[in-house]
């Protein structure tokens, strides 16, 4: 599968064989708490700074301290680097460095490792005093050995003990040293990056980590005979590197928002960690509320009394906030909600990616609650989406749900640094005296838009209510008034839709197959489309940023393709499963929406594996659907 993407050549320089490749995927895995993530992140950051395309994802166990040396506890990073821009996590890993054989086994069993991969594994377990551990080592190495990988044993513990007393705390930097040698990373940059990563710790910590780095580098130089050359082909100038949650946090600041109310929930919480570090410098407050409901309540209270506020959550929290979201729509209080999706239903897969909240985000509120749902497709878009969301929330006096997911939240990618515009901050809300008799919901007949009356504004006194109300905000149960106010709230969505541009088709404007996606799958889908098109397959793709209201022109675009299908990370039945028929088949969530909206017979292919989609898997789906669809 790797041959589809990576162009490899081999040459011998001195003792070491150098494999030149257009891209390479590296994993660093350990028990939780051994620092593999810091190793991986640093490797990714250095590669980005050197001008490589990079995509980093975290491999996270759901528990804080899972049992050591257990496959379930595998924790670390996958870093995919390329000569050019890398838009997704790729297929399988080419190089894996593991701190014990059990976590390596876990990756092997998840089919995460390429057939010809190079595996570096800590070998202290082979001679461990515990007989059971030695037996586990032997069994694991047998299983791994049978798979045809190139396995290199590394005496990490033994080497690290020459520098530190507790090798468990040092192996990650030793491993980083090995990777730096293998990929010929800039060591000055790496030292700088380490110093940055440990900037909050004592100076001797940085110094010791530098020593471990050099130790790993020297060990690799002495003992390894294979290096990988992925040439930096990008300019790193004017580029930022961060994850999607950080981008959303910075986006919120750039959007001029000053109140983030939240309750801790994985994988959304790190947005508030980032804001906690910086928000106060801008006069912004991160309010950690007593629960998810209070979090959205505080955001609504702050929004009602001035600047648009936002709340950050994930699926279970979104469910708890539902009643308040309905109030935001009903009373036309601007509000931005960031939903960092994880696997569901219920507590589901807290640390893993899924796109299963779409219909809940659109229709979860009781009653008819028209509002805006957006989905950034890249880490860069996580930044810009916040600015757009705030602007829309305020202009349309409505709720905007911004849907990201665990893949964007924890993925790290370089992207062009935005040129900040003071206009994004928005102007102070209009608090000029309100003329007598002007109603608080003075709906424009055509658009449903009206001015917001903010407390403190003379002449604007009224009681906002979640009950059915007329233009004067008076409780009104009369049927005609409810019909009218529902119409006004709904109209705003049509007005917003009229300002949206039709989505761009990636690839040819017509053909055999159109793949439609939303959210974090864009990079993987487009890479798969590129691979298929390179083989002559007639396929294009289209990615939606607005799910409510839908972007215009979809039906016209769909009509130019023989077949349209969505690719999503949520559950759908397949027709060859028992009992499943065309009639009862439950489809992907975007497919539901597109079918309803366009009356086009949109098919879908979806998976809920708790990991981002692999471009290779989508490529296979494209091939099989074009041969089917094209023939039909």
């Amino acid at each position, binding site marked *: 599968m790797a041959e589809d993407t990576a162009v490899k050549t081999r040459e011998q320089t001195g003792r070491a064989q150098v494999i030149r490749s257009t891209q390479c995927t590296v994993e660093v895995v350990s028990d939780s708490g051994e620092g593999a993530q810091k190793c991986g992140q640093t490797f990714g950051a250095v590669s980005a700074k050197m001008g490589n395309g990079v995509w980093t994802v975290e491999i996270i166990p759901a528990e804080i301290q899972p049992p050591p040396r257990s496959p379930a506890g595998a924790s670390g990073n996958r870093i995919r680097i390329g000569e050019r821009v890398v838009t997704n996590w790729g297929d399988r890993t080419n190089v894996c460095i593991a701190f014990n054989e059990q976590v390596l086994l876990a990756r092997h069993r998840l089919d995460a490792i390429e057939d010809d991969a190079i595996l570096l594994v800590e070998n202290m377990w082979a001679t461990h005093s515990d007989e059971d551990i030695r037996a586990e080592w032997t069994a694991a190495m047998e299983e791994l050995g049978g798979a045809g990988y190139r396995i290199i044993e590394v005496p990490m513990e033994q080497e690290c003990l020459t520098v530190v007393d507790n090798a468990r705390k040092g192996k990650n930097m030793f491993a980083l040293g090995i990777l730096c040698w293998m990929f010929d990373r800039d060591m000055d940059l790496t030292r700088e990056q380490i110093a940055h990563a440990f900037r909050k710790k004592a100076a001797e910590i940085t110094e010791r980590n530098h020593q471990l780095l050099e130790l790993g580098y020297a060990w690799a130089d002495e003992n390894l005979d294979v290096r990988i050359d992925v040439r930096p082909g990008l300019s*790193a100038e004017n580029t*930022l590197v961060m994850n999607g949650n*950080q981008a959303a946090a910075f986006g919120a600041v*750039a959007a001029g928002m000053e109140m983030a109310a939240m309750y801790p929930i994985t994988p959304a919480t790190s947005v508030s960690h980032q804001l906690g570090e910086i928000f106060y410098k801008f006069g912004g407050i991160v309010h950690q509320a007593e629960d998810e409901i209070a979090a959205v309540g505080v955001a*609504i209270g*702050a929004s009602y009394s001035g600047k648009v506020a936002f709340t950050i959550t994930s699926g279970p929290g979104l469910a708890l906030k539902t009643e308040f979201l309905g109030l935001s729509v009903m009373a036309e209080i601007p509000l931005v909600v960031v939903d960092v999706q994880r696997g569901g239903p219920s507590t589901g897969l807290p640390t893993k990616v899924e796109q299963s909240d779409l219909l809940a985000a659109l229709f979860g509120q009781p009653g008819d609650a028209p509002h805006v749902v957006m989905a950034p497709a890249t880490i860069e878009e996580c930044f810009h989406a916040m600015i757009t969301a705030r602007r829309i929330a305020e202009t349309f006096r409505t709720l905007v749900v911004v849907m990201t997911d665990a893949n964007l939240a924890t993925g790290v990618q370089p992207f062009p640094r935005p040129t900040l515009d003071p206009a994004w901050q928005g102007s102070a809300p209009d608090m000029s005296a309100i003329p007598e008799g002007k109603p608080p919901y003075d709906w424009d007949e055509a658009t449903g838009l009206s001015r917001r009356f903010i*407390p*403190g504004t003379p002449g604007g006194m009224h*009681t906002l*209510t979640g009950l059915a109300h007329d233009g004067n905000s008076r409780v009104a149960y009369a049927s005609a008034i409810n019909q009218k106010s529902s119409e006004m709230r709904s109209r705003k969505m049509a007005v917003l839709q009229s300002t949206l541009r039709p989505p761009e088709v990636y690839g040819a404007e017509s053909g055999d197959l159109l793949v439609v996606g939303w959210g974090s799958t864009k990079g993987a889908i487009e890479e798969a489309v590129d691979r298929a098109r390179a083989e002559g397959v007639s396929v294009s793709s289209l990615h939606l940023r607005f799910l409510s209201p839908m972007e215009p022109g979809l039906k016209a675009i769909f009509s130019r393709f023989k077949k349209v299908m969505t690719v999503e990370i949520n559950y759908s039945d397949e027709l060859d499963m028992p009992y499943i028929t065309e009639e009862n088949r439950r489809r992907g969530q975007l497919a539901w929406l597109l079918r309803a909206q366009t009356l086009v017979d949109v098919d879908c292919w979806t998976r809920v594996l708790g990991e981002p989609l692999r471009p290779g898997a989508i490529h296979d789906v494209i091939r099989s659907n074009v041969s089917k669809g094209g023939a039909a």
Partner: protein
Amino acid sequence: MSHSCSLLAPVDEDQEFHLDDYEGARARWCPGCGDHSVLTAAQRLLVDEQLKPEETVFVSGIGCSSRFPHYMKTYGFHGLHGRALPVATGIKLHRPDLNVFVVMGDGDCVSIGAGHWVHATRYNVDMVAMMLDNNIYGLTKMQTSPTTPQGYKSNTQPQGSWLPALNPIEATLGITNASFVAQTAEWIPAHLFATLQAAYRHNGFAFVRVLQRCPVFTADIYMDAVRNPEMIDMLDHPDGVPVPESLRQIYPNHLRHDPLNLSAARDLAADTSRIRLGVFFRDEGLPRYEETRHLPAHTADDKIRILNEELDQYAV
């Protein structure tokens, strides 16, 4: 709650507000409902304190008493059942210049919104939080509430309430950082007014439980106490609510209680054999969340400059 920003309201500073400046829609509560008394007391308070209607917000939940904001001519927020306190907290965090009053029923405050009651007490954000406690769910037609007396029959517990009634004063006094805890009764307007005034003038979260009769469902609960002032102890102290002159003769039982004495307050609250009205606890020295979190505002250009500096750390 005394701060107000003159820049926000370019009205004539000499304008005097009268009762009708605070009167909103005509109240639609049942005749004899205790909510009427509270509404009158609140409107009197606003006149007395000359609060600008546009700088005053009444936030409520859902229930009979939560219709309250509609009957005021201030800003009002009639939101969700049990969720008035988070909304009020959000308002005050963003706009500490506004005068915020929260009106909740017993179901709102100590049942569906109980978590918020505990935490709002701890945040100690400067506002008046009134719990209009008629010991029953009225709007939904007579269901047991947490404060329904044990054995009292309702539509949901026709054999009588199974559990001892929750004691909101005792519970609030148990919450860390509680700064003002008082109890009054709707049938004693002078005490009700004096208590609301003390609550308003308190710098911090002022929790006031108002004992109320629901003329339809719980008319009998306080019947004896209404008829017999002997059953009531008035907590008396210059730092709390001094017993109003007009009531000193009618209510003969005065208990000298220093509202800074928390353990005495807890003992007084725990003893439910007597109805005690007045300020149980008051301490203005406790941290207020909106003050702790207050930050200076920045200009847009300033923010862009700082944001660029922050982004530099993520530059490749």
